[in-house]
């Protein structure tokens, strides 16, 4: 019962944050991406440590596919949506920076639907280099310490 109330409260908080983001997005229209990121939770982030199965270098958005080992030993697959590769290139990303088999850490804003999908905000590459993603209004995504 309490857990349900907590979940409802957290959804309400998420909705308030999303609304705030929507207003911010309206006010900062030229900074908007072509595609809305309102499907992602603006109230928390999840830090994934996993093995890359694919680094999809495409437009409109790139994707990082990750196998993440769970506490019980099973593997959960996550799809991490990144931004346009054009935007990524303008801030120094290259297609050869990540390859299948690499161990990386990704900070994601999880999708509100609960599916194993998130918006990549930051990736620590196999060599330890930390790379931010040029997500428009990135500051509107509240960073938290939850790991997976």
């Amino acid at each position, binding site marked *: 019962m309490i857990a349900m109330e907590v979940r409802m409260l957290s959804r309400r908080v998420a909705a308030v944050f999303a609304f705030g983001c929507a207003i911010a997005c309206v006010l*900062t229209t030229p900074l908007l991406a072509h595609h809305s990121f309102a499907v992602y939770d603006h109230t928390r982030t999840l830090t994934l440590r996993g093995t890359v199965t694919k680094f*999809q270098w495409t437009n409109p958005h790139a994707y990082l*596919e990750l196998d993440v080992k769970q506490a019980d030993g099973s593997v959960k697959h996550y799809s991490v949506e990144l931004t346009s590769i054009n935007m990524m290139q303008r801030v120094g990303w290259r297609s050869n920076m990540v390859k299948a088999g690499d161990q990386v850490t990704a900070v994601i804003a999880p999708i509100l639907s609960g599916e194993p999908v998130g918006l990549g905000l930051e990736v620590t590459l196999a060599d330890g280099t930390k790379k931010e993603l040029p997500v428009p209004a990135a500051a509107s995504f509240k960073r938290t310490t939850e790991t997976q």
Partner: protein
Amino acid sequence: MSARRIIGSIAAILVTLVLLIQVAIHAQTKPAAQTPDITGSWERYGFVPGGRGGAQRDPTIPPPATQPALKPEYLKEWQAKAQATRDAAAKGEPLATNNVHCIPEGMPAMMGAQFPIEILQSRGQVTIIEEAFTQVRRILLDRPQKSLDDVEPGFYGHSVGRWEGDTLVVDTIGIKEEVRFQNAPHSKQLRIRERLHLVSPTILWDEITIEDPVTLEKPWQVTYAYRKMPDYTLLEYICEDNREYADEKGLQKIRVNPGQ
């Protein structure tokens, strides 16, 4: 005078006339010596939320855009759509836009330059490319505008332009009614007038005036500023694998690929 000499004289006159006509045509189509050089890559510059004011009185930053003065029957639709867009985003279920279907913005939204633009000046034409969706518009110089009935509607329309001193004055018609700027409805009579001019050696303005006697009470003015990107070459952009889609309710969703 012999017939041969007469024919020779006529031929000489004709050759001279042809040469003169060619020179005249050449002079008309050749960019004038004083035509500003705006060729190159440019990025959107100087956007200040809420407009310039307070400490932000940089004269190279354009004034804030005005809202479309839509006629009441169109204003209602526009406001309802804006509210629905905000409500859907607040619920984490944004409405699908054309971009979700990899459909480009068209005119005049492409001049908002979410990604850099490239301007190319060639004889008789100015070409503008927007990196996102590889959008291209062609401004034909010193040509008469066609009539509305003679232009098939499209995303970029039919643009003609001329240099008035240091300003490139452009007139565009023929934008599809489905191609909307800031979601505002428009009719076939939409006309986009632009005045492109440098406000400093590295800052270019595009003063856009949108006219539509059917949907607008008065012209709608928007000015965009761009900063020169001297070392930037536009990147390719192909909407190659879009996992976003619109569901049956028109909401933006993401296709999950668990098997990747």
